[in-house]
C-alpha cells in the first residue's frame, strides 16, 4: 500500500515522527501558556543590602516589617512603603507601585522593593525589569 503512493517504510516512519513532534509541540505550547499565566503573578520582592529578604504576592493584602526600619504594605494589588526611619523618607513619598519592573528604594536603609513576576524561587533565579532611570 505504501509503495502504491510512492512512500517507503522509512518515509512513513518520518511522517509519523513529525506528527508526534507536532503533537508534543502543541501540548507543550499549552503547558507553557498555562505556566506563563501562573508565573505572571506579581510579587513584591524585598531585598536588604542586595540580599533576598522576602517576596509578597501582590494579590494578597499583607504588611512586612523589615528589620524594624521599614514597613511595607501590600494592598489592592499594589505595594508601598508605609513608614521608614530614614531621614529623607523618599521611599515613603515614592507612593504605590504595581507594575512589573517598578521599584522602591530606601537608600539609607539599603532596602529595595521591586515588583517582579517570578519564574523560579527568589534568590535563585529572578525575573526582573530592564532598568529605571531616576535621580
Amino acid at each position, binding site marked *: 500500500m505504501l509503495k502504491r503512493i510512492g512512500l*517507503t517504510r*522509512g*518515509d512513513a*516512519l*518520518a511522517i509519523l*515522527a*513529525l506528527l*508526534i*513532534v507536532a503533537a*508534543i*509541540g502543541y501540548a*507543550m505550547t499549552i*503547558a*507553557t501558556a498555562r*505556566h*506563563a499565566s501562573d508565573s505572571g503573578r506579581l510579587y513584591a520582592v524585598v*531585598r536588604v*543590602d*542586595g540580599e533576598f529578604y522576602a517576596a509578597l504576592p501582590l494579590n494578597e493584602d499583607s504588611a512586612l516589617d523589615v528589620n524594624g526600619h521599614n514597613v511595607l504594605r501590600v494592598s489592592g494589588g499594589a505595594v508601598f512603603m508605609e513608614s521608614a526611619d530614614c531621614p529623607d523618607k*523618599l521611599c515613603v*513619598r*515614592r*507612593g*504605590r*507601585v504595581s*507594575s512589573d*519592573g*517598578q*521599584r522602591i*528604594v530606601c*537608600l539609607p536603609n*539599603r532596602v*529595595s522593593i*521591586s515588583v517582579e513576576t517570578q*519564574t*523560579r524561587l527568589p534568590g535563585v*533565579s*529572578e*525575573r*526582573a*525589569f*530592564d*532598568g*529605571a*532611570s*531616576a*535621580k
Partner: protein
Amino acid sequence: MKRAAAALAAIALAAIALAACSAPTEHYTAEYYDVFDTYTVIVSYGSPVPPELHDELLRLHKLFDSFNAYPDLVNVKSINAAGGRELPAPAELLELLSLNVSFDQKSGGTTNVALGSVTALWKSAQETRTLPDESTLRNALTHTDSGGIYIDRSRWTEREILESPIALTDPAASLDFGASAKGYAVNAAGKLADSLGFVGTITVGGCVWTSKRMPEGKSVWTIAIQDPDGGIYQTIELLPGQSAETSGDYERYFELDGVRYHHIINPRTGYPSRQTDASGKALRSVTVVCEDTVSADLLATAMFVEREDALLAEYGAHAYWIYG
C-alpha cells in the same frame, strides 16, 4: 534505516528547539549600595551577574571619590587636598578630566569640573539644612576656573593619555566630577560587560547602560522614567546598546522656607539651577538617551542647567523633559 535515523535526529532537534522556546530567558539581579552614593542594580539575562562589573564600578568610584582617600591611589580627594602640589594622576582620571573640560566649553559652562569649592558648600548646606552664606558662596565661585588645572601633557601622544603630574594651581579650587564620573564608570563597566558576553543592563542611580546583545524575543530595552512626585511618569524604549541618564531635582535636595534646593548647581550662579517652560512650570527632570553613557551623563547635567536642543543633536541624543 538511514531514513529512520534521520527521523530520530529530526525529533531530537525539534525537542531541543521546543525546550529552548518554552524556557523564558531568565534574569539575574544584583544590587549594590557602595558606589557613587546611590543604588546600583545589574540585571543579567541567561547567566548570573558577573562580579567583575561591580569590581569595575567600585574601582572607578574610588578614583573619582572626592570625600575619601585610599592607600596607594591618587584620586580626586588627594588631588584636591594636595594644596597645589603636583601628584601623578592615573590616565583614566586625566582622560575624563580632558573630556569633561572640552564638553563644558561646548556646553557654555554648565558642567564645570572645577566647581568643587561651590558644591562642597551646598553639600554641607544639605547636611545642616542651612543656606550657604552668600559672601562665602561668592568667594568660592572665584575659585572655579578649570583653566587653573595644570596637567603635564609632555608624555602624551595623540592617541594615548598617560599617567602624568597634575596640580591645582589655585589651591582653593577643587575638582568635582559630579556631572561625568558615574557615566564614565558605567561606560567602563559596560565595555567590560561586552567583553564578557553579558546580556542585560547596568543601572547606577539615574544612569542606565544597556547591552547591544539582546535576550531572545526582545528587540528593545524598556526603561521607566520616574515621576518626580512618585510613581512612573512614562516608559521609554532604548535601542540595543543605548544609554540613558536622568538628572532631576527630586532625590537629592533639601527644603527651606518652602524653597527646594536640589543638588545640581549652575556653575554660573553658584545656586541650584532653575529652568522653566513657557508657562512658568519648573523643570523637574530631564532624561537624555544617547549612544554612550559618558555623553548621556554630561548632557543630562548640561540640559538640566540649560536646555540646548542643538547640543543634544550634536551628540545624536534626544531627551524627555518633565516640567511641573
